[in-house]
């Protein structure tokens, strides 16, 4: 029954010799090829986080509002009051996007959306975080245009507003762009669903798309060269169908509403293998699968191909046998296919059958808990900092990393679902909660300024939280995506470690639980741009921890916005003129800003980050269509953290001072006129600044 030992095959499935020995001791026998493939998939970096699992332990995951902790389920869930909860997660789709940017980005959105509605949540917002090489390169422009189109087309078709995101250009990303997508879902507490495959005898229904050879051996492929005649050895690129995904969302939410499901689990990386194993593992049960029951879109697929396929838009539902007809009736109405592909068994095993013959049988725990975890040797190394920004004010405002990203976001439907509070170019987006009085604030932030990955991690959290605080919302939970090079290089390992420490320290200091996340390693390109393991010179991306932040705003009528409002208002800097990161100070500055907005003291609030005070002030002028005159001679290009520029009517200043006791507070000047005047820095009309800022990106495209 079990075929001969496949020692020569282990490399093909991404298993090392040491890992193979581990498999032998876990199984106490030789695995056959299919079993080896199951191990290869489940023990891949992508599925078991073998290089980061231990490090992620440093993140603060507990808080009273947390309903589903990081690592527990497909997405984290937090209470947001009045019986409502938010499910959210961010995930990378970097490698697929490097190969086919449109489909890679689109299927990235599709995947993260499934992770969220699988929790029983209706997706209400999407965000993203993108990194490309500098847009003076045609390839980078092509990637940008196609990634943005892919993200937009997929989310737009689903009817989920894309409310925020960020784009950053740096040459370290030219061979390996980063595409991180985040989804936020809304649910009632009582509607939370688990993904556990529990209840012996329950049926496993595979819903949605037929299974093809898409993305098989994705892991091995990711490290192969992409040139020349390699084309035909490529696995099929995963192609997304947002239309099918939309039907899946509606059908699954209807099934959950009618209480017809025991469990629900999406199919992502490693397809049926990881979803069935995870579902079984979460229930402490086992699963028996019959691969011939799986609808296939291609002929002659082997059990191995069926188990590893990454065809998009599929879900696995756990259903009590006598509810199957009702479930099928709902699915039929939505025009969706369903295959009864197996059942829950009591023995904690994954058993894969082909026409009733057992082809693989592996203990669930061997695939999950048995996975290796590595502490790679770490050593600091030199970091290529970002290219410096221009100092000429107009050039600075037009710089691709500073200018308005309107070219990007006007391809994203931001207003569908009629809950997005109108704020173009906000520090964080506001999405109304049911009832319309409260809102959530959302943003994504990464920070590539740090010449130290610790700072990159800490600043990502601080900036995201500061952005949320500038709307008046209280940071409530975060999700993170860790984009790094190979952890097998000591410098890569060091970068990852340091960044996680920075992230953890900041989350701790600001008291924000980490409720979900994703790790993407091996983001490197060989000389010439193509990704390759055997490359001579390897460029890793800048260490790029990205944070997706959720904030909670109790009264949306009392919200902060970037734009200067009224002439004669005072412009005040909350926070130090300069200085290194001090997490305690950061927390107090943010709190003072939130409190001041909550009391209705402020007419604007805008955080200071890339491009320093100059950019912050210019943006408040541009969005408010009003000028300002500043007095003190400061370094207006300094990018120190923990700073927020606010404006308020002069008579409210004493109240602000009282609120900010012990915090540095500098009066910068006044709002008014139609020019931004800063001594020794600039004297520019709002219109010329707007022109530079608004068309900065378009100049390249």
């Amino acid at each position, binding site marked *: 029954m079990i075929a001969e030992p496949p020692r020569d095959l282990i490399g093909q499935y991404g298993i090392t010799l040491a890992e193979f020995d581990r498999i032998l001791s876990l199984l106490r026998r030789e695995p056959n090829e299919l079993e080896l493939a199951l191990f290869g998939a489940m023990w891949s970096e992508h599925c078991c986080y073998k290089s980061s699992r231990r490090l992620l332990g440093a993140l603060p995951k507990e808080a009273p509002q947390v309903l589903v902790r990081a690592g527990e389920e497909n997405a984290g869930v937090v209470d947001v009051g009045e019986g409502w909860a938010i499910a959210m997660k961010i995930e990378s789709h970097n490698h697929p996007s490097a190969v086919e940017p449109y489909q890679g980005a689109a299927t990235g959105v599709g995947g993260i959306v499934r992770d969220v509605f699988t929790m029983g949540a209706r997706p209400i917002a999407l965000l993203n975080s993108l990194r490309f090489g500098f847009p003076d390169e045609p390839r980078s422009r092509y990637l940008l245009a196609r990634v943005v189109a892919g993200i937009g087309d997929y989310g737009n078709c689903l009817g989920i507003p894309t409310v925020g995101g960020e784009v950053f250009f740096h040459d370290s990303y030219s061979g390996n762009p980063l595409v991180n997508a985040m989804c936020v879902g809304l649910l009632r507490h009582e509607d939370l669903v688990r993904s556990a495959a529990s209840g012996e005898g329950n049926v496993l229904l595979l819903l949605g798309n037929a299974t093809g050879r898409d993305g098989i051996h994705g892991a091995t492929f990711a490290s192969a060269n992409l040139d020349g005649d390699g084309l035909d050895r490529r696995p099929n690129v995963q192609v997304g169908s947002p239309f099918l995904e939309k039907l899946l969302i509606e059908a699954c939410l209807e099934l959950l509403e009618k209480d017809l499901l025991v469990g629900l689990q999406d199919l992502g990386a490693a397809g049926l293998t990881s979803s069935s194993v995870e579902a079984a593992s979460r229930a402490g049960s086992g699963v028996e699968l019959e691969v011939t029951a799986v609808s296939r879109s291609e002929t002659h697929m082997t059990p191995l191909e069926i188990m590893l396929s990454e065809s998009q838009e599929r879900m696995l539902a756990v259903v009590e046998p006598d509810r199957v007809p009702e479930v099928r009736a709902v699915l039929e109405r939505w025009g969706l296919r369903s295959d009864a592909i197996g059942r829950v068994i009591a023995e904690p095993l994954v058993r894969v059958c082909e026409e009733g013959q057992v082809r693989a049988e592996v203990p669930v725990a061997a695939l999950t808990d048995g996975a290796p975890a590595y502490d790679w040797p770490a050593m600091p190394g030199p970091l290529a900092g970002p290219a410096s920004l221009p100092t000429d004010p107009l050039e600075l405002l037009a710089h691709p990393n500073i200018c308005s990203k309107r070219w990007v976001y006007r391809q994203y439907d*931001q207003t569908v*679902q009629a809950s997005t509070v*109108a704020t173009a170019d906000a520090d964080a987006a506001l999405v109304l909660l049911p009832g319309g009085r409260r809102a959530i604030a959302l943003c994504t932030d990464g920070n590539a300024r740090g010449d130290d990955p610790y700072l990159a991690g800490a600043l990502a959290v601080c900036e995201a939280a500061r952005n949320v605080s500038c709307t008046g919302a209280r940071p409530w939970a975060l999700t993170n995506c860790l984009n790094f090079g190979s952890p097998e290089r000591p410098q890569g390992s060091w970068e990852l470690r340091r960044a996680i420490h920075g992230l953890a320290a900041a989350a701790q200091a600001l008291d924000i639980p980490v409720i979900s996340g994703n790790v993407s390693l091996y983001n490197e390109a060989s000389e010439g741009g193509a990704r390759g393991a055997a490359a001579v010179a390897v460029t890793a991306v800048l260490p790029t921890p990205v944070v997706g932040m959720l904030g909670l705003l109790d009264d949306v009528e009392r919200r902060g916005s970037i734009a200067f409002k009224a002439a004669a208002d005072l412009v005040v800097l909350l926070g130090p003129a300069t200085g290194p990161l001090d997490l305690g100070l950061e927390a107090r500055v943010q709190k003072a800003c939130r409190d001041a907005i909550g009391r209705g003291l402020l007419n604007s609030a805008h955080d200071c980050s890339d491009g320093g005070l100059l950019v912050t002030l210019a943006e408040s002028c541009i969005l408010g269509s009003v000028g300002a005159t500043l007095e003190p001679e400061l370094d207006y290009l300094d990018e120190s953290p923990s700073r927020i520029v606010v404006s308020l009517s002069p008579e409210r200043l004493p109240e602000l001072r009282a609120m900010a006791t012990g915090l540095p507070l500098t009066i910068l000047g006044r709002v008014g006129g139609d020019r931004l005047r800063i001594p020794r820095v600039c004297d520019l009309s709002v219109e010329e600044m707007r022109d530079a800022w608004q068309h900065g990106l378009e100049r390249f495209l």
Partner: protein
Amino acid sequence: MKFGIVVFPGTNCERDTAAAVEIAGGQAELVWHADDSPLQRFDGLILPGGFAHGDALRAGAIARFSAVMPRVMELAQTGRPVVGICNGFQVLVECGLLPGALLRNDSLQFRAEWVHCRVEVSAPPLTEGIPVGTLLYMPVAHGMGNYCEDERSPLGGETLVALRYCDANGDAAAAANPNGSAGNIAGIVRGNVFGLMPHPERAVSPLLGSVDGLALFKSLTRSLVAA
């Protein structure tokens, strides 16, 4: 006053539209595309936005053959209001209730932004009581909103331009046109059938950025009271 909101597979603005109807004082009920029972119980129908059948082929091309569509045509014949918003407009054009065609945006990109539209006709079902020349501020979000006239049955006569994209001063300038549509056309009306690309259901509260869309829904419910 009860409106049927027709839902095709891939429609995604049905809830927003139902909510807007309710804010305007009407009632809304979703109607599934496969339902071929008569729709006489409704005082009017709205075909909302979204991506029926994923916009395969052309927006609205497949939805037009849904079982519900003969019923929609039937109701339109009785003179009751039938309104298509965005994808719904595309369906109305594909099925011939409105003339012309909606082509891909001339930028070849999806366009999501706030626009001003100038009211060109003050008449039921959607703009009654809104003076000609009024500017409405509403979002658009579409990839195929580039209106093209049918040479064989040009506008004029019974089909009128109802809304045009314009700038904040009311000029139908090329720069104010998000999709390249002929004559900056944003919406047309033929008797009781109205189609428009902007999304009035997303402009129903100051928090969302505008209440101008609500004016259209109010006109719709008002026109029924009067009828």
